[in-house]
């Protein structure tokens, strides 16, 4: 007895090894360990177990944890001053679990190759009695310092929100083991009376959670997703916050939009849901202060390689624009017009046109899309930041800009009546068109010569084909800085032709605009 008591720690590791390897006589090994939990000094045995967890063999993480968890639980339930121990145990376990790859698809979750799902379930079972205890003491209003400490330690469950849950697909229609794990964590949070508004909206970093600022933010972002999108425990959440929810969530959305696909999906969903409760045309300019949010959103729209994400992003983007009030829209368009991305810029120009059209309607006039403010917007639209170097082929926004200009000139009769505004508009129009004409002629000259060279090359090739010698491959043509050498010559021909056609179109638009201005 005494031997076991004093030396138990030493034999624990090898015993556990046998259990993990599922060696013969499994029951006996288990019984031996159980016996030890009853006889050895709990503190020492716990230390041993935690040591084992820290030194886990990476290949056997889930098996070891699954084997240890029931024993850890029985040990901790005996121990008197257990709060700190529960905390260290949770930390150690989470650290190891975060090394396991996260299953993403349904098949992966069912296969559970690395055991993450099983471990999550086991972890839930492990924490259950402690959560129950906390719930019980609450009811009796006799909470001791120990209970308070236990609550604080249980808060560590939030770490799992970040790893692994942020990576997993969590949808309420597919009740995967990881989903259940997420639900359990939310339940734990309410059991330990951790008020979610405080955590999400007014939080300061708790020192004992063992996460740095960024990690804590990620955990809270996952929490926001589970609460607002998947509606877990939403009934317990106060309904009296208003646009504030969007404001606070923007930080989390920004965080989620900056990383991987699983995060992005959650971020976009959170964004969509947060916008639902906002009235159209109501969001104020102050919302645009969170610069990182907009750069992350823009990055998703322009750089994300996954198409359906870009599309969803664009949808939410438009919904967001619709929710901004006039002044905010104006500022937002200014912000994005300088984003140096042709796709976004042309999208913005379309929006500007819509707003302009709307404000033309009787009773909708607003100062931001008429008169001087609008002209300042037009100044941004009608500019070629790269001057003569502008690659017209890649600037679809140029076409949009011309169209907008033409539209404005046709529709807005008032524009001519206000002398200052009209002069200003004519001035920027002149500068723009002048530069544009230069660009067009440069580009046209360039592409024409390329076209000619291509034709020459074709002739040469045809001749060379008659000769026996192998010829040079198609001369690579650079469309500005990009090579299109892997295109077949026919396609190259088409590209160049259509470029020239585009230039013609642009020029005819310019002519039309000049005509209208003269009227």
């Amino acid at each position, binding site marked *: 007895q005494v031997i076991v008591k004093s*030396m138990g*720690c030493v034999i624990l590791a090898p015993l556990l090894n046998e259990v993990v390897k599922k060696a013969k006589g499994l029951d006996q090994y288990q019984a031996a360990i159980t016996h030890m939990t009853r006889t050895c000094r709990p503190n020492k045995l716990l230390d041993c177990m935690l*040591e084992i967890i820290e030194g886990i063999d990476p290949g056997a993480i889930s098996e070891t944890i699954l084997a240890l968890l029931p024993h850890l639980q029985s040990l901790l339930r005996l121990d008197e001053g257990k709060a700190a*121990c529960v905390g260290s145990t949770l930390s150690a376990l989470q650290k190891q679990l975060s090394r396991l790859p996260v299953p993403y698809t349904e098949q992966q979750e069912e296969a559970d190759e690395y055991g993450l799902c099983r471990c999550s379930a086991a972890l839930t079972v492990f924490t259950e009695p402690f959560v129950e205890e906390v719930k019980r003491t609450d009811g009796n209003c006799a909470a001791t310092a120990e209970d308070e400490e236990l609550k604080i330690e249980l808060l560590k469950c939030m770490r799992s929100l970040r790893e692994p849950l942020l990576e997993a697909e969590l949808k309420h229609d597919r009740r995967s083991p990881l989903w259940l794990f997420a639900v359990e964590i939310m339940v734990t949070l309410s059991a330990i009376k951790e008020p979610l508004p405080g955590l999400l909206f007014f939080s300061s970093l708790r020192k004992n959670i063992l996460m740095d600022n960024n990690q804590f933010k990620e955990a809270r972002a996952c929490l926001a997703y589970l609460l607002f999108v998947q509606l877990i425990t*939403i009934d317990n959440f106060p*309904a009296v*916050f208003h646009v504030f929810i969007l404001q606070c969530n923007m930080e989390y959305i920004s965080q989620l939009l900056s990383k991987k696909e699983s995060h992005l999906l959650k971020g976009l969903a959170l964004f969509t849901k947060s916008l639902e*409760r906002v*009235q159209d045309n109501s969001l104020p300019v*102050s919302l645009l202060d969170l610069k990182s949010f907009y750069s992350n959103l823009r990055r998703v729209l322009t750089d994300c390689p996954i198409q359906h994400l870009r599309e969803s992003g664009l949808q939410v983007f438009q919904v967001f624009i619709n929710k901004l009030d006039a002044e905010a829209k104006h500022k937002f368009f200014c912000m994005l017009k300088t984003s140096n991305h042709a796709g976004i810029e042309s999208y913005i120009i379309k929006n500007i046109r819509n707003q302009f059209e709307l404000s033309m309607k009787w009773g909708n006039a607003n100062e931001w899309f008429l008169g001087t403010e609008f002209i300042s917007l037009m100044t941004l639209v009608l500019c070629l930041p790269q001057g003569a170097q502008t690659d017209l082929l890649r600037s679809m926004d140029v076409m949009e800009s011309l169209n907008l200009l033409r539209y404005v000139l046709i529709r807005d009769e008032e524009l001519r009546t206000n002398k200052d505004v009209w002069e200003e508009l004519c001035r920027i129009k002149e500068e723009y068109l002048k530069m544009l004409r230069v660009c067009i002629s440069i580009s046209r000259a360039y592409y024409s010569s390329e076209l000619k060279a291509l034709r020459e090359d074709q002739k040469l090739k045809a001749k060379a084909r008659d000769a026996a010698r192998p010829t040079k491959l198609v001369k690579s043509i650079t469309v500005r800085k990009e090579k299109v050498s892997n295109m077949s010559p026919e396609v190259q021909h088409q590209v160049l032709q259509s470029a020239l056609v585009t230039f013609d179109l642009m020029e005819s638009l310019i002519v039309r605009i000049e005509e209208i201005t003269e009227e």
Partner: protein
Amino acid sequence: MTTDQDLPMDHQSATALFAAKGIDVTTNKDQGVIKVIKRAGVDGDRPMIGDRVTVHYTGKLATGKKFDCSRERKEPFCFHVGKGQVLRAWDIAVLSMQRGEVCTLLCKPEYAYGAAGNPDKIPPSSSVVFELELIKFEGEVLTGDGGIVRRIKVKGEGYTNPNDGSIVNVHLEGRCGDRLFDCRDVSFIVGQAEDKSIPLGVDRAMDKMQKGECCLLYLKPKYGFGSEGKPEYKIGPDKDIVYEITLKDFQRAKDSWEMDLKEKLDLSAEVKSKGNQYFKAGRYYQAVIQYQRIISWLEIEYGTGDMQQKKIQDYILTSHLNLALCFLRLKEFTQAVDNCNKVIELDENNEKALYRRGEARLCRNEFSLALADFQQVLQVNSANRAARAQISICQSKIKEHHEKDKKTYANMFQKFAERDAKTGKTKRRRDDSARTSFNGEVSIKQRRRSQECPS
């Protein structure tokens, strides 16, 4: 009114009740929020904008259906009033309540959930009814340690706040107890309020204020005049003080992204000497602010060419070193260590950084780590006598602790030995003798008090 009546279910009677007894609490009197007081509160002050208020509430749709109730959650609800965090109706109504007051509110949708409603609970364009109880209210805590508490008397406007380096124009009135000790119009630079005899608390509150705002700042000594007091104002040591500040206007300093590298370097020179000035005067918090500005400007800069790069590096290094020293003086040892770490990342054998980190670790009782640092100092510069002295201090502290451990565990094995001797059992020795050696020293792992382990 003698009996408290529960709100009738019927929409029309509800409106009738409100029409009969209610007060329109909106500023433009558009009947958007009607209040009926069910129980009057304690006569006295009312909450101010920004205050942290605690309420209990029940929310019902006009049909009578309950959609939210804080009492059911058994948790009072806290928020900062007048800041747009909650429904407009609440921001208006709560400011009109007194402590302990219970009232019912009838809110038109424009003051509540609007045309969008709340997709999960409230249909679009719904009027709603709230029963509110104002339990308590207190000022807004601006710093983590509660040293600066603000209560706003007049809300400001605009979307920006003064940043470090801004020039602000204020009117201030300082009081200790009921005595007014300072009343003037003054301009100062944020971060350098000290130069105008204005305490740290006022300075630090500036970046939360808006133009036109008038607020009361309740400062604890740490953010006031500390343990020195201020003889010129006849303020003794460790006194709480209150300032009423009106921010008339301000001019923001350029943000990091608004400045080019040359500007930043020029400014850094000025700021650094300002920081040094504060340090010499013993104003460590103020010095920290200045040094941190340098770092925030330069840590993301890359110079063109080696000269510039070196200049940037130098500024960053010296700033971190200075910060470490400041934090040592302020007894904020973790921050001291963090700053030393940054220096060591850039320059492994930086003598000052190693020494200061050693000092900080010693104060945190991380003796072995401190020892390692000081030893490394000697490696870099064997003539550093101070390091030698510190090493022997560390060694004696380590010995002290070992002695303590030994005493605690010494008897344990003795008892075992005695018991074994009595019962005559043989000990089966295991192979892992490395773990437990009975020959004297026992290394007991103190897992949960992990002072020795780097965090």
